[in-house]
């Protein structure tokens, strides 16, 4: 019997891996095409054999994408905006996550009067296409004197991240044992202390999900950075788009692929190292 069970367990394992590998194959197929393309020459690409391996793999496109491709009068590849992107990303990731966590916590645990209304409007606002809001926001920031500056872009990211970040944390906190909140209040914890000492440590899985979303969103953002950051602070994606996008210019697909992968390196890195934060049973042992 035990033997039989082991056999089924082995089959179950095989099934699990089969599914995961099949899924991975589906997910990785475009990456495969991107990578092979990036190592091909344009002549080879023009043949249209997208699944073929490069006949003479070359790193030229990568080097060009990083440091040589033209993005206007200057030809410095995508690296140009790297530090700008970092400068935008750090506050635009940290602030929205923190604010979102605070909002979610306040809404789900303290339930202040009118909070649900605020949240409802916010969630509704999430459905407006960002682009429609750009013009009034430009006017607003201009009036505040932060248009075309680092604070300008951070504020815009904050505004647009608010619905999702708040939603994320509000629903997450709603799932934690309410008893904890009671205990903490008896212990005399005020709003902030409960948040910092009790709620935040229990938020790691959601913090990491929020970080994944926000880093990706901010790092890949193009239109907002373009519009609000000012020309001194243009993020990397502006260079990326300049490398890739063109209506009437020539398209160097190998370079485009390399540039795209290079630009997404930072979020990818975050994904890779995020694993240890997906902890199991964060609230285990809290209540009977």
């Amino acid at each position, binding site marked *: 019997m035990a033997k039989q069970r082991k056999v089924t367990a082995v089959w179950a394992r095989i099934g699990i891996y089969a599914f995961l590998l099949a899924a991975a194959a589906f997910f990785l197929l475009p990456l495969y095409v991107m990578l092979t393309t990036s190592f091909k020459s344009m002549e080879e690409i023009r043949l249209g054999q997208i699944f073929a391996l490069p006949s003479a793999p070359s790193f030229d496109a990568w080097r060009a994408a990083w440091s040589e491709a033209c993005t206007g009068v200057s030809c410095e590849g995508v690296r140009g905006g790297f530090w700008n992107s970092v400068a935008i990303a750090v506050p635009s990731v940290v602030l929205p996550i923190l604010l979102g966590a605070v909002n979610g916590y306040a809404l789900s645990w303290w339930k202040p009067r009118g909070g649900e209304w605020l949240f409802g409007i916010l969630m509704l606002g999430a459905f407006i296409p960002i682009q429609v809001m750009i013009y009034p926001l430009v006017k607003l920031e201009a009036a505040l004197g932060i248009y075309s500056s680092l604070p300008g872009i951070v504020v815009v990211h904050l505004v647009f991240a608010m619905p999702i970040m708040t939603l994320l944390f509000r629903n997450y906190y709603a799932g934690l044992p309410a008893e904890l909140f009671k205990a903490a209040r008896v*212990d005399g*914890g005020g709003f902030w202390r409960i948040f910092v000492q009790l709620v935040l440590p229990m938020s790691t899985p959601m913090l990491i999900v929020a970080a994944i979303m926000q880093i990706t969103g901010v790092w890949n953002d193009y239109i907002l950075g373009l519009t609000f950051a000012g020309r001194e602070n243009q993020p990397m994606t502006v260079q990326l788009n300049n490398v890739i996008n063109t209506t009437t210019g020539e398209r160097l697909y190998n370079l485009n692929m390399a540039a795209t992968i290079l630009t997404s390196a930072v979020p990818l890195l975050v994904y890779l190292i995020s694993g240890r934060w997906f902890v199991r049973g*964060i609230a285990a042992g809290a209540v009977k």
Partner: protein
Amino acid sequence: MSGVNIQGLSIKFGANEVIKGLDLQVVEGEFLVLLGPSGCGKSTLLHSIAGLIDVSGGRIEIGGQDMTDAEPSERGIGMVFQSYALYPTMTVEKNMSFGLRVAGTPKAEIARRVDKAAQMLQLTPLLQRKPAQLSGGQRQRVAIGRALVREAGVFLFDEPLSNLDAKLRAELRRELKLLHHTLGSTMIYVTHDQVEAMTLASRIVVMKGGVIQQIGTPAEVYERPANLFVAGFLGAPAINLVPARVGADGRTLDGALPLQLAEGRATAGQAVVLGVRPEHIRLQDDGRWRATVELVEPMGNHQVVWMKLGTQGFSALVHDGRRVAAGDVLAFDLDESALSVFDATTETRLD
């Protein structure tokens, strides 16, 4: 300073009224034990005193001040939750010291109190563990510890010892009593353990369905239960209830235990129920009645003897080591002075 005064308290969950216009005065420094069947609203009452539930009516005063709407932290209470509600990301030590750290207590003082509580609760080796790594009883002790270190004016304990072994429970019972003496704080204590209730309580409150049935000292509640419910609820084995009808003289009873009541205790023709505690049934050879033994439960230091007289079942406690076996026919008598009499319809005590 820290008496608790509850007036007309009512609490609803949706349409379900769990506490119904409850009045209760807890004197400062009192050790009040709440007793009542599962689901009668004990925890709900504690939660409302702590300010963790919105009340739908009534007033709660603590230390003479209206605290009906005050924040839990302002009420000066320490609480042990029935479900523990430990902070899962904090170690045992952090769990216990959290409240003190919040209050800005000096570090040395925190360490002193935590150490003391940990020692008393035998948690010292576990101080660096997280709740998930503890056994059920250990978690419960952490929950107690967290309340104790606060040295609050009012302690609310919701079945704090239920998952502990008898020995530890006895020790902690003693410690709690001691603590109560030294701190002089008011304790409101929910328990299902009658030994706990009897040994700890200065007064016992018996609740049923959100309504208080009787308030009194342990002896009062046990010996002079206010109604059939209280009588049946307290005591293990349960009180023997014998229905009877009062004769024309207003004294003589028929039924399984024909007796003479004291003058004026009942009226002629009244249907009553006699309550006889098992320990007041004495097996003695010259007893007025004889019954057949049905079952004997040995309990270590005593035996419970289940007997039948006609159709009426009885239990009796036997403390002398005598051997009793099922089928024996034994003569018994009872301690009439300790008898309770209840009206069969209103179920209230007749005196």
